[in-house]
């Protein structure tokens, strides 16, 4: 069992002052093995916070990230899964299924993780899986009326992944989604 935290679009301090306390309580150090962050932290402070939760942190560059050192895309292998990570503002039109599918083919991965839309999504398309963890802080998005804070925890077990989706409505709501890799 490998736990991977998929999270991003914090936009601290430009659009939010902090992670919701209900989320902070859940993100206990030492339980999670990897963190895949879609970007738009936007500052080192948030990166340092992620490092306290797990030591293996991967971040890609969002359109408001200050640091130039994050790459535009990254491919990470966890267990049997090749995972592609990008912020998503580079995929035009934003959030487009086919655009993301194109990226999946280009990176040759099983799972594509992207953000930018601040809307949680988990879609299976032609045997590949596309995840958007949404915005961890519920940060403002010009194209969305209401943004629900959310993040995703992936439990990778052999060829199977269980996604736990955490969304903050009045309280924290958890959804479970399963995905099996087609051999």
């Amino acid at each position, binding site marked *: 069992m490998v736990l991977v935290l998929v999270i991003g679009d914090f936009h601290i*301090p*430009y659009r939010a*002052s902090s992670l919701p306390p209900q989320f902070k309580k859940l993100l206990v150090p030492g339980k999670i093995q990897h963190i895949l962050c879609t970007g738009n932290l936007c*500052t080192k402070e948030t990166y340092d916070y992620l490092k306290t939760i797990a030591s293996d942190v991967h971040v890609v560059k969002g359109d*408001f990230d200050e640091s130039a050192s994050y790459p535009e895309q990254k491919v990470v292998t966890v267990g049997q899964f090749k995972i592609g990570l990008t912020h998503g503002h580079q995929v035009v*039109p934003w959030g487009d299924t*086919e655009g993301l599918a194109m990226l999946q083919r280009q990176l040759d991965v099983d799972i594509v993780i992207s953000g930018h839309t601040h809307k949680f999504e988990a879609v299976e398309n032609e045997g590949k899986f596309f995840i958007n963890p949404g915005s961890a802080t519920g940060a*403002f998005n010009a194209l969305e009326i209401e943004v629900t804070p959310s993040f995703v925890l992936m439990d990778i077990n052999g060829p199977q992944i269980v996604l736990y989706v955490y969304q903050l409505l009045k309280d924290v709501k958890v959804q479970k989604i399963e995905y099996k890799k087609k051999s």
Partner: protein
Amino acid sequence: MLEKPGVREGGEVESKSVPTATNAAYGVVSHDQSSSGDVAMYEISQCKVVKLTCVCAMSSSRLLKNPDQCHSVATCAHVHCPSKDREVTEGRAAMPLEDVVALYASLVNLALKCYPNRLDYVDTALLCTVEVFTKREATPVESSSVTSRELIRLQNVPVKTYESTLDILKLDNFPKALELHDYQGRKSLAVSVVGTVVSKSISIPTADEADALFKLLSPLVKDQADQPAEPPDPDDFEEEQMMMACLVDLFRAPEPDQQYMILNVARKHFGTGGDKRIRFTLPPLVFAAYKLISQYHSLREQDDRWLMKCEQIFKFCFQTINALVKNQPELSLRLFLQGSMVADRISNETVTYEFFSQAFTLYEEEVTDSRAQQAAITLIIATLEQLSSLGEENHETLRSNCAMSSSRLLKKPDQCRSVATCAHVFWSGHFTSEDREVTECKDPKRVLECLKKAGRIAQQCMDTSVQALPVIKGLLDKAARPVSRS
């Protein structure tokens, strides 16, 4: 259970006459009859009051379980209402300042424990402290001194203890006590205040409170006359300004009109911060303003002046972003693009075009690094693809400009990718026709033109770099999409 009389950290036991009075006072403290409170008052006024009260205050803050004990001890504190205080401390003019401060700190602690709702007790203690210092002409207090440490400790007590940190704004004498310090002392307290407000996520609901808070935080808001000439540690400075930026998210007025007033107050204060501060503090203000516009839009049924108010806020945003252009052109470009999307959502074509064209102008005039250009033009094209309120002519102008700029990028692979991305705007981009219908561009001729051009550029790439292969593959994929959709 009770401390040795007259002895405290770093202090000395007083002269012989104290023990008797102290014992009497102890006797009083342990009784819970209100009459003994009067006895306490008598005893206290007769003997070496200063040390005694210190003892009372300190020991009582440790043994406060019984509300009646609390009362009798609080009576001790009453003795130190203004008139008595002055007698006390004047009579003990030789008493070192740090001891005076420690005394008042104990009283403040006591007041907060016994009567947390009585802000006036704390305020009075602060007033007395200020008066002592003023009388002895002991200002500004040097931040390296023991006195300063004690004074900061005193002032931090209400900051850290109050459930609603903004209650410190109701203490009229808190700002006066702040003025006693030198620059370092004032800054240290400002950092403590803003750190507490942000970590506790305390909402700031009115413009007046925001204004009072910013005045307290003056050392962080702007350069001070007495601040040292050498520049501060950049990491510390950045951390402090990030906390100031976080304050914006805590502006939570119950009504949008009030929220706008708060934003204006914040703008006024942040504007005095200079270039090195506004790069942290102005962007969150812009986003807060965008959020406010969305709020007015969603409440438009209830406010027939909402359009006018939104235009006002857009002007506010425009001027605020312009303050950042000189030093942060790329950030300003992104802020303008965000603004164009906000305007687009409320179907304001004029502002959408204005903000978008400003972003474009910044791209052409200020973004010179090739990598930054590639990133910026991608954002510009992607944003245009999302807009729908522009009229046909305006949209045509902008998408042609996008295509032209794409073909002028430095590196061939970037040109190729960017021109190919433009194809999307010619296909799935939207404009508003004359009869107010939102129409998709669906221009197959221009789409094909873009793709062919991208193909020609890609062929030029092939001669010089292997990285063009994914570019070509991407192109073919892109070509397949609009065709498969139509």
